[in-house]
């Protein structure tokens, strides 16, 4: 099918990308700065044969996603930080029942009501199982409007492959930003439930009844189920780490940043490279699993490295960098949080302080 070039915002690209990936169910509750997603879904989902529901709360929305996913449909919801906090109960149930789903968090600053300006301070919540229990969501972070669009296909594919919730982590800056992208020209949604999902609830015609559950009354049964979850997480860790590397071959200082911070950090790297500084960048694309392998490999090859994590938070992802290098080289941190966006100049000043 022919591609088309369109100019849209990050939020709209997420919605359009989800539709292109065969998402046939969306439920959400309005919250800034991601309202373009819900509006886009309200207008486009029914046009293309899917189901759109404006839920009465984020709690209802995530549980609607639970129901749609239980039937085998590709289902998603989106929100921003305070709404994502409300969804945590449902995300834990999705993980426990091994249901695929995509949850988009266009982060704003917190804690509490905070404000509507961009932040990356929900990193812990996303990567450390924000709800109760021992579980993990796969967490993906995009850094451009095109990547937001493309990432939706990956998100739904990973969710189905591993029967696991996937979180897309962006921030208000990326959500609102307009960029031209190449999008697939898509036909109406062909199926609402996927016939390959043998576990799905479709009515028990011609088979034994299916049950979607996360409850296991006995200690043995729950531990067995949890062991199988852990085995799945190990498999994901082994095969799904993704990152983008920039000038890693000769770098002595490596910036680590995700999402819109990575774009700004790239500007700093470019300016410093022009001045002859041996600096590089790692942009984690999977935040869980965190791309630890590349860090270990670099540290093994070069003991004189310094990492500088830059974040729109007071230091969350930096913990994963520290865990990855395991004390072998220095890991520094620079960040702001509360809606402030770090500039390339601030990063450059921080880098210059390192030597």
């Amino acid at each position, binding site marked *: 099918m022919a591609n088309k070039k369109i100019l849209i915002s990050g939020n709209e690209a997420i919605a359009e990308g989800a539709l292109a990936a065969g998402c046939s169910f969306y439920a959400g509750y309005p919250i800034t700065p991601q309202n373009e997603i819900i509006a886009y879904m309200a207008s486009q989902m029914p046009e293309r044969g899917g189901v759109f529901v404006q*839920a009465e*709360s984020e709690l*209802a929305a995530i*549980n609607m996603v639970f129901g749609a996913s239980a039937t085998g449909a590709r289902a998603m919801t989106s929100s921003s930080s305070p709404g994502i906090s409300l969804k945590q109960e449902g995300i834990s*149930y999705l993980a426990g029942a091994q249901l695929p789903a995509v949850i988009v968090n266009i982060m704003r600053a917190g804690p509490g009501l905070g404000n509507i300006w961009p932040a990356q301070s929900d990193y812990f919540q996303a990567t450390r199982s924000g709800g109760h229990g021992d579980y993990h969501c796969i967490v993906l972070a995009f850094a451009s409007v095109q990547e937001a669009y493309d990432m939706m296909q990956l998100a739904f594919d990973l969710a189905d492959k591993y029967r696991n919730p996937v979180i897309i982590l962006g921030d208000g800056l990326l959500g609102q930003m307009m960029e031209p992208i190449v999008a697939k020209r898509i036909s109406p949604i062909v199926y609402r439930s996927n016939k390959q999902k043998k576990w799905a*609830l479709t*009515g028990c015609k011609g088979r034994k009844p299916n049950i979607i559950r996360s*409850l296991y009354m006995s200690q043995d049964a729950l531990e067995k189920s949890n062991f199988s979850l852990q085995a799945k997480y190990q498999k994901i860790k082994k095969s799904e780490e993704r990152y983008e590397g920039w000038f890693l071959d000769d770098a002595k200082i490596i910036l680590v940043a995700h999402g819109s911070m990575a774009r700004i950090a790239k500007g700093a790297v470019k300016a410093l490279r022009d001045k002859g500084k041996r600096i590089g960048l790692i942009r984690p694309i999977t935040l869980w699993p965190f791309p630890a392998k590349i860090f270990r490999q670099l540290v093994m090859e070069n003991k004189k490295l310094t990492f500088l994590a830059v974040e729109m938070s007071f230091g969350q992802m930096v913990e994963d960098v520290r865990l990855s290098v395991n004390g072998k080289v220095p890991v520094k941190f620079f960040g702001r949080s509360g809606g402030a966006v770090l500039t390339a100049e601030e990063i450059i000043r921080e880098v210059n302080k390192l030597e």
Partner: protein
Amino acid sequence: MIKKINNHPKSLRKIPTHYCAGCGHGLAHRLIAEVVDELGIREKVIAIAPVGCAVVAYDYWDFDCSEAAHGRALAVATAIKRVRPDNIVFTYQGDGDLAAIGTNETIHAANRGENLTVIFINNAVYGMTGGQMAPTTLLQQKTATTPKGRDQKLHGYPLKISEILALLPGVKYIERVSLHSPQEITKAKRAIKQAFTNQIEGLGFSLVEVLSSCPTYWGLSPNQALSWMREVMVKEFPLGRIK
């Protein structure tokens, strides 16, 4: 030869339940299973089990079932029915599940007029967690959290969620029934059948409130519990068609 009069419903597995002696849940499960059989919809049904004593209802019913977090059954059911309108989708919920933690989901699913069937088990307590006050607990009724009895000044009044829901234009059918005598059980089954038939015909949101006994947390014998329902509970929760 002795003739078997009560055939075991195909939609109910032949295993003992975990419910206390005299509990209404087992009977309510059976009535639903009989109705599902009689309407010939076993292969189309998708049930949503609550969080409450009936959480493992899916161990007893022999058709597709999903769990839902406490109170969220109607959000889960809404999506299942919207994605698969040809299936017959129902929720089975206790008074804590439907009328306390899940009130928001309940009111909004009803107000959207979702074409769903709801079996609402009112036993005037939280059974699963040890007999605490439910929104439906009667005035003066003693529970684990109202040791001196429910006092309207402190705890408010028994919540008549069915009457509240009846005000919503999206709601098609509401009836309150009770399981305290064979006659009432027959009426309960007829109402449950009506609520399923409405969905088959696409008529919209239908709810049956079933007064059900919890001898364990009422501190009564199974027989005393039935008398209490007949003499006290139905005065607070009058039986019959509400809408």
